[in-house]
């Protein structure tokens, strides 16, 4: 996100401006494909989040404008669904599944171990933006419960010790340049 790197060099600045521009174009293309129909709102929000990582107030306002919808309606939809995030996510995400099968197989113990390890509460991102610790209501991976998703990769038959070690290793790596 360009707003996280205020001190970037002019060259970098223009590069990220180009990316931002491209993202805007891709979002426009999605809206055009749906003929700017208000009922495409959820599809458009999916695309926007995929491109930008989260839905900022400015982004929501511009979508509302493009689809001719009141901002309240766009905000209402964006906050109703769990999938949409109105705040930036961490560089890494760790999602502990709390579906029934995972719960019965000790997902809560895994979550508390990770909370203790990271000092984060579930649903929060570390102040340095390195890690978000999240929970999910069933990923449909019940056959290999308990399941945890680390940066998009599902880990089945998860246990607290291994996860703690993996998280530790992940956070020890150099942060990705913003």
């Amino acid at each position: 996100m360009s707003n996280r790197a205020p001190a970037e060099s002019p060259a970098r600045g223009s590069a990220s401006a180009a990316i931002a521009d491209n993202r805007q174009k891709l979002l426009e293309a999605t809206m055009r494909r749906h003929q700017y129909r208000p009922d495409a709102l959820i599809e458009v929000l999916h695309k926007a989040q995929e491109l930008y990582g989260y839905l900022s107030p400015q982004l929501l306002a511009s979508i509302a404008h493009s689809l001719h919808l009141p901002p309240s309606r766009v905000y209402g939809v964006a906050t109703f669904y769990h999938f949409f995030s109105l705040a930036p996510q961490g560089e890494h995400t760790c999602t502990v599944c709390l579906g029934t099968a995972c719960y019965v197989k000790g997902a809560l113990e895994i979550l508390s171990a990770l909370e203790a390890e990271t000092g984060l509460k579930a649903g929060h991102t570390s102040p340095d933006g390195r890690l978000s610790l999240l929970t999910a209501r069933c990923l449909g991976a019940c056959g290999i419960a308990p399941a945890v998703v680390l940066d998009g990769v599902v880990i089945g038959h998860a246990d607290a010790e291994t996860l703690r070690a993996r998280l530790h290793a992940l956070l020890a790596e150099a942060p990705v340049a913003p």
Partner: protein
Amino acid sequence: MDLAELHAIAERERARRKAVRVLCCTSSGCQASRSIELLHQLEAAVAASGQDETVGVASVGCMGFCGQGPMVRIEPANLIFERVRPEQAPEIIAALAGQPCGVERGDPNHPFFARQVHVVRRNGGNIDPERIEEYIAAGGYEVLYRVLHDLSPAEVIREITRSGLRGRGGAGYPTGLKWATVAKSPGERKFVVCNGDEGDPGAFMDRSILESDPHLVLEGMAIAAYAVGAHEGYLFVRGEYPLAIQRLTRAITQARKLGLLGSQIFETSFDFKVEIRVGAGAFVCGEETALIASIEGRRGQPRPRPPYPAEKGLWGFPTLINNVETFANIVPIIEHGADWYAAIGTEKSKGTKVFALTGKVRNTGLIEVPMGMTLREIVEDLGGGSPDGTPIKAVQTGGPSGGCIPARLFDTPVDYESLAAAGSIMGSGGMVVMDNHTSMVEIARFYMAFCMDESCGKCVPCRVGTVQMHRLLSKVAAGMATPADLEQLEQLCHLVRETSLCGLGQSAPNPVLSTLRYFREEYEALLRGEVDASTNGKP
């Protein structure tokens, strides 16, 4: 596209097949255990061993035994390998040439496999879900051809009605009746919607069907559209299922390219186009009016029924909404006939049901069994009982809308009526086994927390009631509750059940009511302070 072309595709596909097929499951569950890497290693091992003339490796859908994944099966010898690691690929391929093999072998005659009846999952684990040719080679789209050419819409509906198929989403409404209502409803446009918003935690049947056999669902939807007079369809899939979405998208593109979806299908006047809608994470969207709101780009909040979606659905037009598994049953029913289907199952619950068997049981995964099989058979024979000898206490069916059935009632047959009589529901097919280490009060509290989070907030009984019930359950679990609290909890259960707007609220008290019915002593022990509250009721 005509029948001869369809047969030509099937013929080419069969000719392409090698004598020996190494099938590697690449569904989400097995992918999480590195099955994509395994697939590549198997391909490399075949090439390296010089057997590529006779041996072919294929990526296939779910074989069901997810807890033992990744799974590899060899056809036609019917050898099963479990928990295969990518580095074991050469060993498996060498075994084909008669070498000894130390990889963990599965038993195809194990009750987990042998007692299943595959109707919906007949292609699961047999075909590559990303190649329409394999589906066609397995007889795919022939039923659609027959329907369009030989049957009238009324005849299709009659066949589905006669089969006795009931909605697999949980409520069990007769499918034929629903189709007939939509067919009768006047409307210049009609829609067919497939409900793939499998939000029930502990259930993954629909994910697996969509990942393993997307064309079966698409063909079922097309037949339904023909029967009710619709030309547009939506497939609503959970955003949490990226692989299912990817495979469905590919399936739709392939079918469209071959003229099996789109305009003038099989050179008839029948048009049917399908779009995918990705859910954005809201359990309530499994409720049909909320699902409609979500497709229309609004907050997924239900509205009072009637009018039912069959009369006024998407954008006010008559809309047929069925669950993924329901649509997956259509092709087999038309193919083999209503009588064949009606002969499976019990008097009032026909056919098979797919269950996600999980929790404290030895064999976890996906099973498809005839209706009427008892819980004991499922848990003990297919599931293999407790993994560590801890006695099994209960089975939870129906997720947050269902209930816990105690071990002493395990002779209950699994059908819509018997499960309802036992205080639970069939639900979409989640079946979570719980042992003596599981506190029933905690489970009730777990589900109530879920319903509280997922309540859409539209009606007061659900929005406020779930919060209050959760508060009382927390009080009980912490050992701070009084008998009056328990009484209030029960009253609230009945109130919320009677007065909520939609199924979410109406069924939210079920886990509490069923655990109170069968495990009241756990609640009362906590009231008396007998169980150390710090362990949350665990012994």
